[in-house]
């Protein structure tokens, strides 16, 4: 059985913009998505994620810009002509139809024969692992099952693009973890070009081929989960994705190498991502992930002097707040086994294993 969407085409979003009166909800958004790619729009509440999806799906007209599938421009088409599958936060399954009728709705609209419809519905029930539940009404399913029906309904008619707007936010934490892996798996097997919207950075990191980090209607950064985590382009990215220590400093290129200068005496090598971090002497944030803060016995050379101020046990890891000479307060996250005997008040040597700089504005 071939589930994969062979007709998949790349999606081009070209300078799409939306305002509500004076308010700019989406500033010129451009993005090219490969066929079969899983792209996540990540950003805080109100940053314009849903507005972007609504423009893509045709439920909201954009002010300007173009949307194309391959070479075909689709942004002038009404929602029912775009061939886009939508999964809503509340699933919006038709309560008066059975699971099978829900899944078949898009096929019915496309005039599929009875036999073809039945076959396709069976395929999809199998894909989302709900075999035998086709005759149930949506209200007779659990939240996670409803969610999968919504996905099946959106995939059934081989859409060019599937859009999911925070489809996991109504599930409890445990189920959410399970379903996001399921969803990812289904998307891969169907080779379905997908845009997924979330404000949960873990969800974005776990599921995506690429992440579009959004803030206040604009794009902050586009990259793989690894790129977003390891090399944030902006202060917003450094703060929003994962935990980070942000220490104010300046860029120091006097020695030729790229270094961060913190306070009068501390100079540390640092990586940068964006080309707006290049001017010697400019204000930067020196960013250190807690897991890149290592602790050694105090005697060892080449380390900052530090003192353990607080310890927060989290199970596998322990958060340690350190007072570090030359850096200030720094949070470390280490495996519990490694720092089990480290008491509050202990003096330690602190080693920064990796660091990264982003521009500091204002």
């Amino acid at each position, binding site marked *: 059985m071939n589930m994969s969407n062979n007709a998949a085409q790349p999606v081009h979003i070209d300078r799409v913009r939306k305002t509500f009166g004076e308010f700019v909800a989406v500033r010129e958004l451009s993005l090219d998505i490969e066929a079969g790619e899983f792209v996540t729009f990540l950003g805080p509440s109100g940053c314009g994620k849903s507005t972007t999806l609504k423009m893509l*799906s*045709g*439920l909201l007209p954009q002010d300007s810009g173009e949307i194309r599938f391959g070479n075909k421009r689709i942004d002038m088409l*009404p*929602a*029912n*002509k*775009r*061939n*886009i*599958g*939508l999964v*809503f936060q*509340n699933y*919006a*399954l*038709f*309560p*008066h139809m059975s699971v099978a009728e829900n899944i078949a*709705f*898009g096929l019915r*609209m*496309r005039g599929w024969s009875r036999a073809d419809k039945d076959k396709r519905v069976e395929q999809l029930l199998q894909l989302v692992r709900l075999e035998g539940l086709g005759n149930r009404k949506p*209200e007779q399913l659990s939240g996670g099952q409803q969610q999968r029906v919504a996905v099946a*309904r*959106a995939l059934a*008619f081989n859409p060019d693009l599937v859009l999911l707007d925070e489809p996991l936010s109504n599930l409890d934490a445990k189920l959410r973890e399970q379903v996001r892996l399921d969803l990812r798996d289904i998307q891969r097997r169907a080779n379905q070009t997908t845009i997924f919207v979330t404000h949960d950075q873990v969800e974005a990191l776990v599921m995506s081929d690429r992440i579009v980090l959004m803030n206040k209607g604009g794009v902050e950064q586009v990259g793989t989960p690894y790129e977003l985590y390891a090399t944030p382009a902006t202060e917003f990215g450094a703060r929003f994705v994962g935990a980070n220590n942000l220490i104010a400093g300046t860029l120091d290129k006097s020695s030729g190498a790229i270094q961060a200068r913190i306070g009068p005496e501390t100079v540390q090598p640092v990586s940068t991502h964006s080309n707006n971090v290049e001017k010697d002497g400019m204000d930067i944030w020196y960013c250190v992930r807690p897991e890149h803060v290592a602790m050694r016995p105090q005697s060892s050379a080449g380390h900052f002097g530090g003192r353990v101020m607080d310890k927060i046990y989290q199970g596998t890891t322990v958060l340690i707040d350190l007072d570090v000479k030359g850096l200030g307060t720094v949070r470390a996250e280490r495996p519990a086994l490694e720092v089990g005997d480290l008491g509050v008040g202990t003096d330690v040597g602190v080693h920064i294993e990796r660091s990264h700089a982003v521009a500091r504005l204002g």
Partner: protein
Amino acid sequence: MSAARLRLTPAIFFGRAALAVYLLIMLLWLTFPVVLVLLASFQGTLEVSFPAPVSFDAYKTIPPSYWEAFWFTIRAALLATGIALLVAIPAAWAMVRGKLAGRRIMSNLVLIPDVVPQLILGIALLTVFIPLRLSNSFAGVMLALVALSLSTGLRFTEALLEGLPDEYEQAAQSLGANKFTTFRLVVLPLIAPGVAIAALFIFMQNLITFELLFFISGPSATPIAIRLFSDIIDRGIVPYAVAMAGILVYVAIAFYTLVAVSLGPKYMAGSVMSRKG
């Protein structure tokens, strides 16, 4: 919870008893007129006595002109209800979903027939109907009822649609359904229970509308309410008038039961707007 439930202190007991009595009085007050009319219809007089022989004599003496007026009213009320809903549902959909400018004003305008005294509405319609030769005709009575039903129908369906999240319609469209198909396959089935209840209310209202029809009716178009009124004014409370009043009560109960049975009881109690019960 369960522990608290088991401990029936005197205070709680009297509280509950008081509540029960209160509800009982309220129910009696609400049902008293209906019960009185029904009892009277079996005794042929409003001076109801206990115990009294039950007889159908009053029903047997209902004159043909009453039956004529009765069926006239049923036909006009049914037709007006149907027409009003046929017009009101798409109109309400356009108003609620269309995001038309001035929609607030529109949805207030259509309430006018409901808030203006029916007497005034009746006079206004009469001035229009006379030149059109619609007064004293079935069509005239029916159209007057449509005006009234439309207002109620729009109010009902507007509320029903407001209560329906527009995601269902958006989902249907994204799946390829055009506006009309979306309306037919998604909107209509989802509001159908509410519409059935609206139809029930509108039909009842039409059945007993009096003031509005007072001027429009005439010898060749007499609704039952007008017939009863003029007879009672002329001859006092005659037994067959009471019997006819009883029949109107049966019609009301029959329609209520019909709607209740076809929807299931969960829709009837509580909010008219609840879709899932």
